[in-house]
């Protein structure tokens, strides 16, 4: 017994030591003492730091990487034009490999060590909700460029998002599907391990039923699956006239390919803005021709800002931008706009200016924030794939 007690104490001491060691190691990352920083400020204003919160190596790496690329271009543009209030923007990036514990550590670092003024991210609702309380408490602005699910901006006055909400685009699209395209029998496919898809499916279903349509079959897939043959066979059997899919472009493209492979040559896919990426037709090829989705902007009738963005994006990255690129770009631009309007780079001040932004002509759509700080992108565009590109089907204004 004596021995075990001793080990116990030795271990406790080891534990404390190691925790302090980790502490000392990490402390080095902290910025220089305040006095020095103040001196520097007097000479030239320090760069305004923006944190990128996202996944670069895990399951959602695609969305994280694209958001970051969009942000990088925005920062380049802002700094090229002389910065905001005389200071340049600087991105602090950190990869959380889709791990919530790591994401929580990262935002603590952003808020307390890096002293960022804003955090852009996470593209997923789950990690946004896990990090928002910490960021809000640290009095830093967060703009998620991708979280569409419920319960995000309610977390606090510093929390924003720059997305086309499901509750805006979903009902509009289903109304058009049932009443104008005249399809009543719908096969609804959900990516069951994707919260975005699960949330959107509920809204789609409500929209279909409200307009007098019928969901003849509900199928589940998983993000990351490549084999959809079983589900598609069931859809074929059900006699559905159209496939409504609430997930992302990778699975969407592959599902349509399987649909054509099984000999259904005229059925199309209708989906959310999760389908908005060139990957959709790169994977689906001719199978996704005619597919419909909604978005906050139309590539066919681009505003000058959008046109310029697409052109410069292609020149920089050698590919067409997708939804996450555009939302990441806009998120940084919205922060810059708010700082300009507030004439202050203090998050406590410019968060109110951000909440007041109306009709900002972003590349991901015309953006306003409502009284609850929820984004409203109006009008909503219904788009259709033609010759591997989105073409305009209908423009629907949104009530504010």
């Amino acid at each position, binding site marked *: 017994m004596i021995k075990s007690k001793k080990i116990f104490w030795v271990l406790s001491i080891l534990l404390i030591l190691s925790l302090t060691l980790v502490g000392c190691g990490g402390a080095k990352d902290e910025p220089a003492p305040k006095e020095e920083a103040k001196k520097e400020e007097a000479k030239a204003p320090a760069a305004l730091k923006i944190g990128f919160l996202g996944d*670069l*190596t895990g*399951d959602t*790496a*695609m969305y*994280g*990487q694209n958001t970051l690329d969009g942000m990088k271009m925005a920062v380049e543009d802002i700094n090229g034009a002389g910065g905001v209030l005389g200071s340049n923007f600087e991105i602090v990036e950190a990869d959380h490999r889709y791990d919530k514990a790591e994401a929580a550590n990262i935002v603590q670092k952003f808020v307390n060590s890096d002293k960022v003024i804003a955090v852009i991210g996470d593209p997923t609702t789950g990690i946004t909700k896990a990090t928002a309380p910490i960021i809000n408490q640290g009095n830093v602005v967060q703009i998620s460029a991708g979280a569409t699910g419920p319960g995000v901006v309610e977390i606090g006055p510093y929390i924003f998002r720059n997305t086309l909400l499901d509750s805006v685009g979903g009902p509009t699209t289903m109304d058009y599907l049932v009443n104008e395209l005249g399809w009543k029998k719908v096969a609804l496919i*959900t990516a*069951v391990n994707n919260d975005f898809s699960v949330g959107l499916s509920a809204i789609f279903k409500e929209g279909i039923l409200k307009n007098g349509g019928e969901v003849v079959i509900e*199928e*589940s*897939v*998983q993000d*990351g*699956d*490549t*084999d959809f*043959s*079983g*589900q598609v*066979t*069931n859809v*074929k*059997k059900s006699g559905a006239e159209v496939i409504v899919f609430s997930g992302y472009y*990778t699975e969407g493209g*592959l599902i349509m*390919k399987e649909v054509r*492979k*099984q*000999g259904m040559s005229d059925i199309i896919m209708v989906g959310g803005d999760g389908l908005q990426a060139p*990957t959709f037709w*790169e*994977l689906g*090829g001719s199978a996704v021709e005619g597919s419909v989705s909604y978005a906050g902007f139309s590539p066919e009738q681009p505003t000058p800002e959008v046109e310029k963005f697409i052109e410069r994006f292609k020149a920089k990255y050698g590919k067409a931008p997708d939804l996450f690129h555009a939302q990441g770009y806009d998120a940084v631009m919205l922060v810059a706009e708010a700082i300009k309007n507030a004439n202050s780079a203090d998050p406590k001040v410019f968060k109110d200016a951000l909440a007041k932004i109306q009709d900002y002509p972003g590349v991901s759509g015309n953006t306003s924030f409502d009284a609850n700080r929820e984004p409203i992108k109006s009008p909503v565009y219904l788009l259709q794939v033609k010759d591997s590109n989105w073409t305009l089907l209908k423009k629907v204004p949104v009530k504010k």
Partner: protein
Amino acid sequence: MDFTSNFIVQLINGIALGSTYALIALGYTMVYGIIMLINFAHGEIYMVGAFVGLALVTVFKVHIIIAFLGAMLFCMLMAVSIEIIAYRPLRRSKRLAALISAIGISIILSNLVNLLVGPKPQTFPPIEEILFEIKSYDLIAGAQINTLQILLIVVSAILMIGLQYIVKRTKVGKAMRATSQDYDTAALMGINVNRIISYTFAIGSALAGAGGVLVGIYFGVVKYNMGMLPGMKAFTAAVLGGIGSIPGAMFGGIILGVIEMMTVAIGLSSYRDAIAFGILILVLLIKPTGLFGKQIFKKV
């Protein structure tokens, strides 16, 4: 479509999916049979195979059959080097040490590909451009099978029969069986065990590489994290069949694929994994060494 035709279509879907599991499962089972290692990096080797095939077809513009063989060769060489670097020094250590080493290799491979290619899914050129037009053939009762499914099933079958021939009829195969039965005695009998283990890794990984390219053609997409899930399913399939047994891995793969498809067919697609793994656990409880596994008696 009536019930029978639907059943047959789903059965074919399941066999096609199961063939891909089986090709990967064979590598797991061979390596396990010979050095008792769950080679976690095996799924990533399958992924690398798919990328090598893609690069050969799109960048070097070679014929798909050459790309197929090229991917197999690349995976062979890669797996043999991995074995020498990461597993051989640990052969006499605790088995879990080699397992962790394999996990490390798996993390390295998938992140390396992510770094080189990026997280975006890459598209395989459409099958019409590189091989043939997809046609569907009628089977009984209105059920159909298409050329891609036939290709996948036939190529997998040829590879598995080839493997069975190597293991049962050749000298190397005999040495492999001897080594897997008793490592030390095999060495005493003059078998160069290190070389035989290298052969085992080479053959198993060639099959995984072939599987990667086949799946790339079949689904038209390759991704840096595509190895993870099929790797896990294939390992499960190998255990279901009785790990260490080559026919067990083949049938285990196909049975797992068919179970998954049947779950989807009866409308429980969201419980697909739960039911597949539930059946696995049941099988193990009834027959603790898998369907084809031999009863192992422990020497006291």
